[in-house]
């Protein structure tokens, strides 16, 4: 799934990385606990979270993620956006709740492993 489709599915605002919309993501992870995110490597993933602090961006950087989507209308600071931008991460903000946002992306096929 392209980041462009995530933007559309989640009615998200693009806060940085507008040039990365055609980047593919293959997996997603939704959590407010960063150590849970760090526990399993996901290939070219998007991180969905309601947590807002610079460690969210560093966690995504450590995991070589492609995109962060902040849920529940949360807005990251300018410092977080410049860190994300320097790491080549797209950052989105959606009014959806974490559960809804994950469900929408899963339903659209992101990270689904068909039997």
């Amino acid at each position, binding site marked *: 799934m392209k980041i462009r489709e995530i933007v559309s599915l989640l009615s998200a605002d693009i806060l940085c990385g507008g040039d990365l919309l055609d980047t593919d993501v293959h997996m997603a992870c939704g959590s*407010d*606990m960063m*150590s849970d995110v*760090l*526990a399993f490597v996901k290939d070219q993933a998007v991180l969905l979270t309601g947590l807002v602090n*610079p*460690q969210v961006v*560093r*966690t995504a950087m*450590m995991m070589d993620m492609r995109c962060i989507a902040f849920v529940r209308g949360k807005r990251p600071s300018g410092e977080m956006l410049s860190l994300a931008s320097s790491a080549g991460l797209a950052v989105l903000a959606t009014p959806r709740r974490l559960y809804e946002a994950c469900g929408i992306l899963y339903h659209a096929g992101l990270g689904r492993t068909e039997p």
Partner: protein
Amino acid sequence: MSEPVVFTYPIDGNNFTSAGGASVAVKQNLRALGFPDDVVRRVSIAMYEGEINMVIHAHGGTATVTVGEDEITIVLADRGPGIADVERAMQEGYYTAPDNIRALGFGAGMGLPNMRRYTDEMRIDSVVGTGTTVTMKVRIPEEGA
């Protein structure tokens, strides 16, 4: 045999916002040295969890990363309170971090288990009241670097 490359970083224990900066620097350095993505990721994630632990629990310390011929060694040394029961601390989900740290997305009892998960060897030397030294090794696959 070439001389090992050594990176040393002071870890500021009073600044949660900047925590992880050393791990980001190590990641960039290892990438620049041409290591495979998997090795870079394992070293940097393990170090990142350790760095966060040093800030949460131990008022900071020093991180030393030594790039040898066939392995990368990360040594995280602090003069914090020490770990009374290392075996218990290694259990997933066992935590001692206060709620204000958990609200920041860490301290859920996954840090040490994650460090072990991503490294080939891990050793914790801790003395209560004196400090803790965590030594981790990640082997470099032969086709790497």
